[in-house]
């Protein structure tokens, strides 16, 4: 593993001060499930200072707010989300999605914040290639073996897909993220939080959290009556593997009529891809097998697959049909 020094601050402000002091040489460290792999692979981009936020006492909680929504501390373990009766009651689709992340032992270690802000799993980055995210000026995925970990929806610099499931599953609930910054608390939608590859503080990353900011919690608004949601994840094995394609789908239903919907694809683009064309199409439609077929023809019209990943689009469309069929059942 790369040589590191670890800070264990006791407050968010102290953590921010340390992060500010070290710049991009430091990184927030919580579950470490993504970070330790980058350190073990000694990536150029891996930090030298870890700022352990687990000693900060108010980052690990799941609590109901006064409106009936739920706030989840960023350092809350995935297993705690998975086992939360409150979440299971209010957002069963989220709990299902969390349960499909990595493996049980990793969910014992991983945090919600870590899942949301994790680095991409492109084999070139993780293999230490000097790519955009690793100090270089090239995306190997765009020209290399891009069958699994790369975007079929185009890209800017880095073509790696956004790998997380939690973000994909949170968007249909209109969840928001809270960030502690040197200037104070910042609040963003999940879509704003992880907009895909972009340059932040000189680094290509999937999220907008700056080097001296800390994701502190996620707030989910109260579930609306009539909302039905489904999460689908296609992966080679029943555990560990990242999504080849995934779908978080929510429908605001009146009988079988769709008043409103959220259609979010994971594993096919540099961000959790909200497909508003399908959402617009589904509005006021009635659930039926034919509807699924039609929705598929509307979906992902602006796909831009790379050499090996065109099937991601077909898979994602298949998941859309699957999700609609499931919610029609």
């Amino acid at each position, binding site marked *: *593993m*790369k*040589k590191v*020094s*670890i*800070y264990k*601050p006791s407050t968010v*402000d102290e953590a*921010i*001060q340390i992060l500010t*002091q070290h*710049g*991009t040489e430091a990184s927030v460290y919580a579950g*470490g499930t993504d970070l*330790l*792999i980058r350190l*073990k692979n000694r990536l*150029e981009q891996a930090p030298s*200072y870890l700022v352990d936020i687990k000693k900060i006492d108010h980052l690990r909680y799941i609590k109901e707010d006064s409106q009936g929504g739920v706030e989840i501390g960023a350092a809350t373990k995935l297993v705690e989300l998975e086992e939360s009766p409150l979440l299971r009651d209010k957002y069963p689709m989220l709990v299902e999605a969390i349960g499909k992340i*990595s*493996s*049980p*032992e*990793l969910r*014992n*270690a991983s945090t919600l914040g870590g899942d949301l802000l994790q680095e991409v799993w492109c*084999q070139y980055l993780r*293999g230490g290639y000097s790519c955009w995210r690793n*100090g270089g000026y090239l995306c190997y995925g765009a020209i*290399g*073996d891009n*069958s699994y970990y790369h975007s079929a929806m185009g890209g800017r610099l880095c073509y790696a897909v956004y790998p997380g499931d939690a973000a994909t599953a949170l968007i249909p609930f209109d969840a928001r993220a809270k960030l502690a910054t040197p200037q*104070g*608390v*910042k609040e*963003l939608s999940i879509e*704003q939080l992880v907009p895909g590859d*972009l340059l*932040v503080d*000189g680094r290509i990353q999937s999220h*907008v959290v*700056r*080097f001296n900011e800390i994701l502190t919690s996620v707030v989910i608004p109260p579930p609306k009556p009539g909302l039905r949601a489904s999460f689908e994840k*296609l992966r080679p*094995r*029943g*555990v*560990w*593997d990242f999504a080849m394609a995934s779908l978080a789908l929510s429908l605001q239903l009146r009988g079988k009529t769709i008043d409103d919907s959220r259609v979010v694809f994971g594993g096919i683009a540099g961000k959790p891809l909200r497909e508003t064309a399908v959402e617009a199409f589904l509005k006021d439609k009635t659930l039926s*097998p034919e509807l699924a*077929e039609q929705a598929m023809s509307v979906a992902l019209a602006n796909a831009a697959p790379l050499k*090996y*990943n065109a*099937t991601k689009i*077909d*898979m994602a469309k*298949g*998941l859309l*049909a699957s999700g609609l*069929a499931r919610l029609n059942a």
Partner: protein
Amino acid sequence: MSYSRRNFLKAAGSGVVLTVVTRESLVAAPTAPPAVAKPFANEKAVFIVNGKPYAAEYEARTTLWEVISMKLGLTGTNRSCNRASCGACSVLVDGTPFYSCHTLATEAVGKKILTIEGLGDAKNLHPLQSIGHTRVAADCGFCTAGWVVTAKGLLDKNPNPNEDQVKAALAGHICRCSAYPNIIRTVMDSAAVLRGSKIQIEPEADSIVHIKMPMLRDYSTTGGHLAGDEVVEGSNKTITRKWQGYPPENLKVLGQLLPPLPEVSIPRFTGKAQYASRVWFPDLLYAKYLTSPHPRARIQDIDTSAAEKMPGVKYILTYKNAPKLQRPNVARGRILPYPLPQELNMQGEAVAIVAAETEDLAQDAVDAIKVQYEVLPFAATLKDSMAKDAPDLGRGKGNLIRHADSPKDFPQATWADQRGDVEKGLAEADLVKEFTYHFTGGVSVPMQPSGSVAKWDGDRLTVWSMGQGIYPVRATLAAALGIDPSKVRVINKYNGSTFGAARMAAERFYPMIAHLAKVTGRPVKVMLPKDQELAQLQIKPETITKFRVGYKKDGRIVALDHEVYVSIADLDFGVHADGPGNAANQFELYTSQVPNWRSTWCAYRTNAPRPGASRSHLQQETKWSWENMMDEMADAVGMDPVEYRMMHITRLTPGDTRHPYESMPTVEVLQEGAKAFGWDKRNPIAGGGNGSAQPARGVVRDSNDRFKRGFGLGMSQHHGGNMGYHEGEEAFAKLAAAPDANIFSTELDLAADGTVTMKIALPDSGSNAATALAALVSEMLGFTTRDHVRLIWGDSDIAPVSDEWFGGRTITLQGAAICFAADKLRKDLLARAASALKTDATKLQIRDGVISAIEDPKKSTTFAALAKANNGLIRQTGRGTTGGERTATNKGVGACFAEVEVDTWTGNWRFVRAVYTHDTGLVINPLVSEADMVGSLMESTQLATDAIPWDREFPGTRHYSVGYLSYRLPTIMDIPKSTQVYIDSLEPRWFYGVKSFSETTIGAVPGAISNAIYNACGVRIREHPITREKIMAGLSAKRAAKTPGRQA
């Protein structure tokens, strides 16, 4: 110098602001900055492991596994992938399972850590350990410590889990041997016992159909032997004693379901099985390799000066200072490439080896070594190596391997064989079809990181090794170092699997590790990380197979042209394209009834990992093409795949010198397998399963038609085993005198307490071979249980000389030594008893250590008394050999029947169930063999569905950076329900009718799955591996073809 944006930012400190976040999103005011604590890079703390406090000093980057295993020497917890992708290293921290390789040590300070050592020891086993032993929940045992503690964590929280909960809890644990069904049963049974249930845990099989064939058969259906006491041996007409005098009658121990020998099996559950990776000394140094980033290069210079000065670094080996080997490293008569070459022929080849105080410090130094490479043009794939403008990798000899035995009339082949006139046959055929299949390469990664430990005591070297034998390693290591073999002790009792693959990765480097230990004066250990190991393991190479099939209108094949192209890396021998022993074995299943055939094998040099035995030799990569082809042919002529194979399979006929086998139940394997599977329910129309072939109501995706089931069949055959010693002492002496003879030997010691100790050199890689051998000894010595036979193994100081096992032949090679020693011991004891009882040996009987007169059982003596009378020990030795190939080889044949379910909407597929049918001979232990065969099935499934992580666009490079996320081994969530069908074919030439079947059927699986997927959804995959993306692409293409105007 590479310019790095990151370095620029380091200087800038706070970094450049390029974020797009609006001011409006700021909703709270900042607070004043507090005082900042100092970071730590080193720490000293107390760990509470299994209730005991241990102090340790470590770096901030040190993992919990490194503290437990490397600092504290609690070596029971294994580390395999080191990337949180296998679960082998799991421990409980305050009752919750974590991967200790992926938990920083500092996280666990002050918390209660439970490792396998804390669960129970040999004297006080936890139910998970004792029941796991009975249920054969560990084959190689390398994953065992991890899942056992996770299961303990589960049962502490949920004493009454259902099966799904057990699977969910253990989902994060890879068992490479796929003991999953037995693991699930172990946890369920343990839960019951821990709840206070008084159930008796008896050994029982999961799902076996056992077909006992008659003792005497004729040739009307298939192979068999005729009535009579003598069996003629192949072309040599050597007369062999039938059953070697031990017929399969009145068996007491053989055929019983018995757990593995406790002395082998129990330590796997207590963390005490001594893999090389578990060997630990307080002053151990750790070795790390610098490897080549280039597929082909020449090292111009290496500068280690900066690295040598780094903390903790003790020695650095490069081509400049590495010892010249006195004699090259040899394995099975073949020279292994020099371990630290200056000419680098593949990405991942070793360039330098650093020995340092910790792995991290060694790696720090590796990173500081500067190498100047002359990068050379390379050819990593067959396509590139066979191209007209390919670089000459053979230094003037070209890329095609030709050697002394290569056929002169086939100048473009490494090896070839033919019968009749294939061109004439093709011309005369009614129809001709051509097929090309591509196997892109596979590797059977063992869980245990390949490596070794070397330690010198004066001029005496001890090596803890990882491989398939100890004496060949000792001999070549001693020769390489120029010392006497008696100065080398090799210990290898356990492997976390080897699959044949570990030889290159571990054995090739023993001289270097030994040298490092010598020059540093410290014991040195190497455990290759999985990404580096991949380049070093023996792999199943890229193989392209082409067929031209001429056939009659009724489907019968009358001419067959078979061309094989195989990637051979930088090996100078054909290995995968060599003659009768290897290549011929891959086509004789379907050619015996074809009048005109030709089989051409072309091995090409490449800059790829090296091929070799890797969970069988050639089986999967060649049968991938054969079994797909037979299925396509059956489809083309409208025949059922079973019937089509019945039309073509080899059936033994008297006097057939090409197939000199005495039992080869090809017909039974097909018929009984089909029956057990329910093959008659197969839908004959590809894609026609589960409802109509055409979706209803014009909807392309009808829910009722979404999931489609399909059946598929593959066959396989293997050189089951040489008859290691069947032609008598004189013949043996002749074979043993040959310079390259592979000798197996054993000692059987009868002690004054009446127990018999077997001494065997062979390590155990999870097959529990010695368990079978102990059963043979028990049976031959007249015991009715196995309890009187003990085992000492895997140590050159105490076990007599033996070769290494290979080709799944242990039972007839090491078994030859064992059986003949037992035969001699039996006769010796009878003679001693006859003398003591003053009677004739023929009038005596043996039962459970008592020898008595048949007429007057009161007239008796005991084994114990006879041993006591002989100074407390009666010893007999036995020997066996591999000689006599082809005249003394038995044949195994097998079939895999697979059912899959394809999600036609997403391309997802699921392996639903399998019937795995084996020509077994007499099954010595159905329980252990079942566990082994489930492993074979899943190993081959993984090989069929996962390529070597080998980049399609940058061939020669590979990505294996995230452990088993980059190389997806099946998990407990992915296994099919499987049933073993044993065809008890009774090999007439060997003791009790035994033959080996360890790799008989493994080649059938890739084709069976491919054919089942075709049957389910109509998508034929000719390029390995079978992936969801290929299924999806095939389904999309079919839909596009069905929907005019729609693009694919």
